[in-house]
């Protein structure tokens, strides 16, 4: 292995530019999971046809596929509802977290007062507050968006508090000797240094957003994929239930993919975190 590169050794004066990693995905990386998925579906279909998997637990792949075609409009209607809740909560919760973390990074007292509370909040099941939120906000969108906002808020807040304090002290000494203002230090040093921490939180909360929305819908709404799951379960409409679960999983993956894509687009302009 040629692990020693002259350019990075910091010794040679003349150096070549290091190559930036491309976005190509080699076929060898895509093929195995695709083949595995196809095999899994084939085994599932065979077991289902042989009657080994009971239909009241897991219908055949064909039945679920037909459900997508037959109930396309129902699924879309409920999915759109869940998407709007999850995205609204995702944006509101994360924006609030970033703004509060920035405010707290200015004030040590505020941070010290609130930080333990934020840490403890990890142990509180936010979902359990849904009935309370329904009483306060009524049924429908508002309590669900509130649950999603709160559940994505804390990971982003905690990570931003860490991220905004993560920049090397040498950079701060440099900014100090340049007579930089607090705002300039935030904008030029602390903010770019915090971005990897923010994305680490966004990747966690991309899935938390849909889980939060769906679970909150069980209690607090009469529309959405969570509601569809509950209703189809009660009426033993298993294909509908599974179709709703697959749609929810797909939506989570799409949001996660968007977060990862944005992170990759920005990675040159932010710090690279090694410990995340």
């Amino acid at each position, binding site marked *: 292995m040629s692990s020693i590169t002259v350019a990075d050794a910091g*010794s040679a*004066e003349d*150096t070549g530019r290091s190559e930036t990693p491309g976005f190509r995905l080699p076929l060898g990386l895509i093929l195995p999971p695709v083949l595995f998925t196809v095999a899994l579906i084939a085994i599932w279909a065979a077991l289902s046809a042989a009657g080994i998997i009971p239909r009241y637990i897991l219908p055949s792949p064909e039945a679920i596929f037909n459900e997508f075609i037959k109930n396309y409009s129902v699924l879309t209607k409920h999915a759109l509802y869940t998407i709007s809740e999850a995205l609204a909560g995702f944006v509101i919760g994360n924006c609030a977290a970033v703004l509060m973390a920035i405010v707290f990074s200015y004030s040590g007292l505020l941070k010290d007062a609130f930080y333990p509370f934020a840490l403890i909040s990890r142990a509180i099941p936010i979902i359990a507050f849904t009935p309370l939120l329904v009483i306060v906000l009524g049924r429908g969108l508002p309590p669900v968006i509130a649950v999603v906002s709160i559940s994505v808020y804390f990971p982003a807040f905690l990570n931003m508090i860490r991220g905004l304090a993560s920049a090397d002290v040498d950079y701060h000494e440099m900014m100090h000797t340049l007579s930089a203002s607090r705002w300039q230090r935030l904008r030029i040093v602390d903010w770019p240094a915090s971005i990897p921490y923010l994305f680490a939180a966004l990747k966690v909360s991309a899935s938390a957003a849909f889980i939060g929305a769906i679970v909150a819908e069980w209690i607090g709404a009469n529309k959405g994929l969570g509601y569809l799951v509950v209703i189809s379960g009660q009426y033993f409409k298993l294909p509908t239930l599974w179709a709703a679960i697959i749609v929810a999983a797909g939506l989570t993956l799409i949001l996660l993919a968007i977060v990862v894509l944005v992170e990759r687009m920005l990675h040159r302009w932010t710090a690279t975190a090694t410990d995340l």
Partner: protein
Amino acid sequence: MVAISSEGGMSIRDVGMVYRRGEQVTTALVGCNLEIPAGNWASLIGASGCGKSTLLRILADIVKPTSGTALIGGVSPAEARAARTYALVSQQSTMLPWRKILANVELGLEVAGVDKADRRRRAEEAIELVGLKGFEQAFPSELSGGMRQRAAIARALTLKPRFLLMDEPFGALDEITREKLNFELLRILKETSATLLLVTHSISEAIILSDTVAVMSPRPGRISHRVEIGFGHDRTADMRDDPQFAAYEAELRHALHGPAPTARPAVHTASTYATA
């Protein structure tokens, strides 16, 4: 106070530095005196831990001395920092990894509020002066350690500082790169009229780049010798072959390693006998 004589230079007067941690008192610096007239090049040389960097950091207003006065251009370090009359180059390159070289070199001007076109022009001039033309759009990680230090020097020069404070600027580089950069810096210094204070642990670097070399002894840190280097500012790389160069080298080596200084305890523990 005595009338200040060196209006335009740097002076360190009876500076002491004592750290207290509980009962433990560590004397880092005692009675340090150094006058650097305007336009002079001075070096502080000594072993690791002798307090040479602390003296420089006092002048850069990063730390405050516990006794004595430091003046830079006739004013306190804090006032000099506010007026941006000095620039600091530290051992570790403080190139922000998410900014290209040009944006990094522009940083000081950006913080000082210089408009975009003007700072672009001045940064490009400085980049050309340090021999980094063509690397404006490279990221710091794409450059060698020596090139990053050139960029750090370029950033310092954009501010047209009256005082250059350099804290082992080539300390992290290999001997070959270091000597090359010593003469590069010499060429750059001749083009500016800045007063220089260089902290180094290299004897040859101190001779190449100084009119005055102050030798520091550790425990507690103090200035033990002064050697005047009589090469003037018209010196060239040929100076290394001058027999006088070897003579200065020997003189400094003796000053650094010569008869062991009488041991003075750096750490006094008040409770040593009480608890024995």
